[in-house]
């Protein structure tokens, strides 16, 4: 499935992601990592710890509806993989981000922006393994 090259939309999206990351550090002193926010939401350490995570997640999930309202069309989600791959992939991601203590947002953006050696190592590692996996799935198995 071919996708359109969208440098400006992607850059603008990235700038918004970066801005929200800085704002969360400025207001609550927290890292904008999806893994950490989600894991802490499901197993919070206190009521106040839960409430900011809930508010953040509520903001995230209302974004598509707001965008649909403003632009008149829903954001594009194209899924080139089957349900089984979604389930297997999702489960593997969950295990990996728990042991790796972070994902694209936590390590790839926040950690990289802090020049954390752990995050730089983690980001390089997952980028390499994602690329290998995509190569194997698409060009070895021909998925």
């Amino acid at each position, binding site marked *: 499935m071919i996708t359109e090259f969208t440098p400006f939309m992607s850059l603008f999206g990235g700038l918004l992601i970066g801005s929200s990351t800085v704002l969360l550090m400025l207001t*609550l*002193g927290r890292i904008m990592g999806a893994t950490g926010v989600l894991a802490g939401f499901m197993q919070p350490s206190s009521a106040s710890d839960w409430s900011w995570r809930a508010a953040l997640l509520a903001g995230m999930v209302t974004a598509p509806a707001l965008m649909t309202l403003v632009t008149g069309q829903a954001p594009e*989600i194209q*899924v080139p993989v089957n349900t089984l791959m979604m389930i297997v992939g999702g489960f593997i991601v*969950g295990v990996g981000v728990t042991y790796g203590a972070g994902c694209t947002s936590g390590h790839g953006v926040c950690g990289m922006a802090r020049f954390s050696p752990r995050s730089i190592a983690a980001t390089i590692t997952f980028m390499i393994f994602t690329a290998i996996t995509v190569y194997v799935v698409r060009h070895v198995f021909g998925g």
Partner: protein
Amino acid sequence: MKRIVSTYLIGLIFGIGIMMSGMANPAKVLNFFDFFGTWDPSLIFVMGGAILVAAPGYWLVVARPAGKPLMDAKFHVPQNRKLDAKLIAGSAVFGVGWGIAGFCPGGALPAIGTLNPAVLTFTAALIAGIFAAKFAQTLTARRTNSATA
């Protein structure tokens, strides 16, 4: 209340950024990594743009004379700077999953709002994976404790 409202708005900005960027579109994510096929380099602009803002932004925030965030007593920033096998192995496993599904947690969470069945399936499996790993970590910790006791 101020804390909740501002955090909600920050989540909204993050969500709009994710949806606009293409990070919540598995076809685009997988194409970014498909150098020998239908390569789409768009996503390099996402990480580039995000770090372009976050790196100086973080520096400015932490350098503020207050020495603490606006609505909390202190910064909650990981202090661990050591590389270990768990970090690298976990990140490698995450990469494999991301390459299979095309969603990462940050991409999927805002996309839940679309109620797209693939996103909901991914998120349910993601949560199951997180709980399975946490359970395994608890077992490992218990075994280590009883071994040293």
